[in-house]
């Protein structure tokens, strides 16, 4: 029997005792990851956490999507050397780079070991007696890039300051004429140190850090944060609270998907859909504002439930507006699919094969566009999604069209879902009391944000405080997908591919 099958199983949103997580040797730990990935699992999170004595422990969360199971493994790293697993299991490549950076682990044999966020070490003193880290951490983006040499090869550097009002990120292309040989993406400009700030929490500030992890996924990240807290505190939420959370999550998805379809059409110069969808995105944001007063859902979700109730008038107004905006979205988006010139720009551009998507461990719409039925709402349901199911939308061409079309499918599903839930909103309280967090526990939350799977993992210490809080935004998995989609593509197609993935910089940079 494989090692990973013997690991403790966990359900998203629940906590388990840390003692029940077996302490494997590093070899067994790695063997478990490799075997599970070969058997079709994914690496959801992989991180290091020092105990009170300063010894580093590694933790991995593996997801078996087909059986809706999560496995948690742990190992103790006695010296700070860790042989890289990337060559045997591609999914962990960025996790290992992060590990080297955050916990000063010497990852040996990693094919491309570079800083991820150019952040100072999370735990400056790992072992008693080890001196504080010397030197200053490098400035973001200041390092060697993958280079292609040759007379006709040229290098194009884009960013970190961009022409549009977007987040900073640096893109380095190795090109031959218009053709891209290789794209390297260097991020870290948005690093704010959220994981560090949440340590020793939860306190009054923690939820605000969670809300601002990634502005456009406020609901997704806050829900994940609250599920971790509720899992650790064994708090039961009311049906009404869970329904309002689910409605907010789907509204967030609607607003962002509609906005992205508009932006995609803008990028190919198709103006009608661009301007209509731009306006409609605002309509959906305003609906979130009806829920809680903030267009991005700030302040709506709190541990134990939600902070704002929906009265009958608000439900009526939401239903009426959803109906109108839904119809207008349908018209605007239909224009897109009916224009051959748009389809010519979308189809067969930025193709990611299914095999590559599996290898890289892509999540969210980007994975579903490659024919992978991965959706945390279906695979690892939490909250309302345990009772109400949204069909998983899958398309298999893996190109820009697929990523756009997945969004349209999900827009329709979310509209239906929200309308159904609003019509049958359960009665009751919107909040329940949250007790103290269980000490020495580990909890995992999985929420399918609009961009993909948002995973929060918390470890509590003996006094029930966060000893480690690990956030994995879907962008963390998917940036590599964008880089690979550009291989062999034309450089002029980069903005379109980038928009079709629509990844977050701050969610990645934390």
């Amino acid at each position, binding site marked *: 029997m494989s090692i990973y099958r013997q690991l403790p199983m966990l359900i998203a949103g629940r906590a388990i005792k840390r003692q029940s997580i077996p302490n494997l040797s590093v070899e067994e730990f790695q063997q478990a990851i490799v075997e599970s990935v070969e058997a079709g699992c994914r690496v959801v999170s992989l991180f290091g956490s020092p105990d009170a004595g300063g010894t580093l422990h590694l933790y991995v969360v593996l997801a078996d999507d087909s059986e809706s199971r999560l496995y948690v493994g742990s190992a103790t790293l006695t010296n700070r050397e860790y042989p890289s697993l990337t060559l045997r299991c591609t999914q962990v490549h960025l996790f290992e780079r992060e590990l080297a950076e955050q916990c000063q682990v010497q990852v040996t044999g990693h094919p491309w070991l570079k800083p991820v966020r150019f952040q100072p070490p999370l735990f400056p003193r790992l072992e008693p007696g080890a001196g504080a880290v010397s030197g200053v951490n490098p400035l973001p983006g200041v390092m060697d890039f993958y280079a292609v040499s040759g007379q006709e090869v040229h*290098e194009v550097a884009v960013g970190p300051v961009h*022409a549009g009002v977007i987040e900073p990120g640096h893109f380095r292309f190795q090109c031959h004429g218009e053709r891209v040989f290789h794209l390297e993406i260097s991020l870290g400009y948005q690093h704010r140190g959220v994981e560090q700030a949440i340590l020793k929490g939860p306190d009054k500030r923690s939820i605000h850090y969670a809300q601002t992890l990634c502005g456009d996924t406020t609901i997704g990240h806050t829900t994940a944060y609250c599920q971790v807290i509720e899992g650790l505190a064994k708090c039961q939420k009311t049906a009404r609270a869970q329904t309002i959370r689910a409605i907010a999550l789907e509204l967030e998805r609607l607003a962002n998907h509609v906005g992205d379809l508009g932006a995609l059409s803008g990028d190919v110069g198709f103006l009608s859909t661009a301007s209509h969808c731009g306006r409609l995105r605002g309509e959906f944001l305003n609906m979130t504002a009806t829920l809680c007063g903030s267009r991005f859902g700030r302040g709506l979700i709190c541990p134990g439930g939600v902070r704002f109730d929906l009265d009958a008038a608000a439900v009526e107004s939401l239903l009426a507006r959803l109906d109108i905006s839904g119809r207008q979205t349908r018209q605007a988006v239909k224009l897109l699919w009916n*224009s051959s010139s*748009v389809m*010519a*720009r979308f189809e067969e551009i930025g193709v990611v094969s299914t095999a590559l998507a599996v290898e890289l461990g892509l999540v969210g719409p980007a994975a579903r566009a490659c024919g992978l039925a991965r959706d945390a709402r279906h695979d690892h349901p939490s909250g309302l999604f345990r009772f109400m199911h949204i069909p998983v939308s899958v398309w298999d061409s893996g190109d820009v069209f697929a990523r756009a079309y997945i969004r349209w499918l999900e827009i329709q599903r979310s509209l239906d879902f929200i309308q159904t839930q609003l019509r049958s909103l359960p009665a009751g309280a919107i909040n329940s009391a949250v007790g103290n967090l269980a000490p020495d526990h580990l909890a995992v939350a999985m929420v399918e944000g609009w961009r993909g799977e948002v995973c929060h993992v918390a470890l509590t210490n003996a006094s029930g405080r966060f000893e480690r809080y690990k956030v994995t935004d879907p962008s963390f998995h998917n940036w590599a997908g964008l880089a690979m989609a550009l291989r062999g593509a034309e*450089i*002029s197609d980069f903005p379109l591919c980038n928009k079709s993935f629509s990844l977050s910089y701050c969610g990645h940079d934390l």
Partner: protein
Amino acid sequence: MKTLIAISLQVVLLALLPPLLLGIINKTKAWFAGRRGWPVLQVYYDLLRLMKKNVVISSTTTWVFLAAPLVSVISVLLAGLMVPLGPMAAPIHFTGDLIMFAYLLALGRFFTTLAALDTGSSFEGMGAAREVTFACFSEPALFLVLLVLVKLSDTLSLSAMLLSASHVRIGSTASAALVMAAVSLFVVLLAETSRIPIDDPNTHLELTMIHEVMVLDNSGPLLGAQIYASSVKLLILAAFLLHVVLPLDPALVGRDWGIMLAGLVAVAVIIGAVESLMARLQLRFVPTLLVAACLFSGFGFLLIL
């Protein structure tokens, strides 16, 4: 006296009208997108604003960078003086001026691409490479259009051939050739003035730009000059196109200036409609479209051989 009025009218229209066409295109696009859009005169305000601004010049550039906008404006205005904007011959006309016309347009492009390379920016180099690549296809198309007109009018002067094109009987083989030349010319117009589906004048995405990316380093009056030059180019190519499709008659001077003006507005509206109704082509298919334009005018020429 009549000639003098015609010449002054031509000069005034050539100098003042072009930004209006950009305004009309933008208004049309806004209408299609369900927006109100900028004022029609916005480009004039922009040009005035740019003229008042300071210039920032990259320290890596040489005199070429400064000369390019100037050459663009002068060359395109000179070319504009060769295309009649009304039913009278243009201010400059002589035998063989069509070659000069084509190469005045090319001269502006040559300097703009040189200036783009002069900045040493990887974006601008890419834009320059794209611009000259696509010009390799649009120039032959323009020359094939000229060939059709030369053959039809038996003259080598632009004014004479454009005005005589108006006297072709509708339904004749010659008119079919003119229609094909007009289609070709319309594609050339879209390419030369960097409109959708070839280029997107409104995009902010440097990696996808062709013309806009070459003038990224220009600021203030230099940028204004480049914007003005490309609007003049739009005007003269639109007027060229109108001569090919519209019957103008020197006997009815007053009315025909009006027809020309209405025609220019109509061309701007059509360009705006094309931009609204279709997406941009993938960059690698742009040559295909331009080759199609060459084929159109080429077959037009075969028709009248």
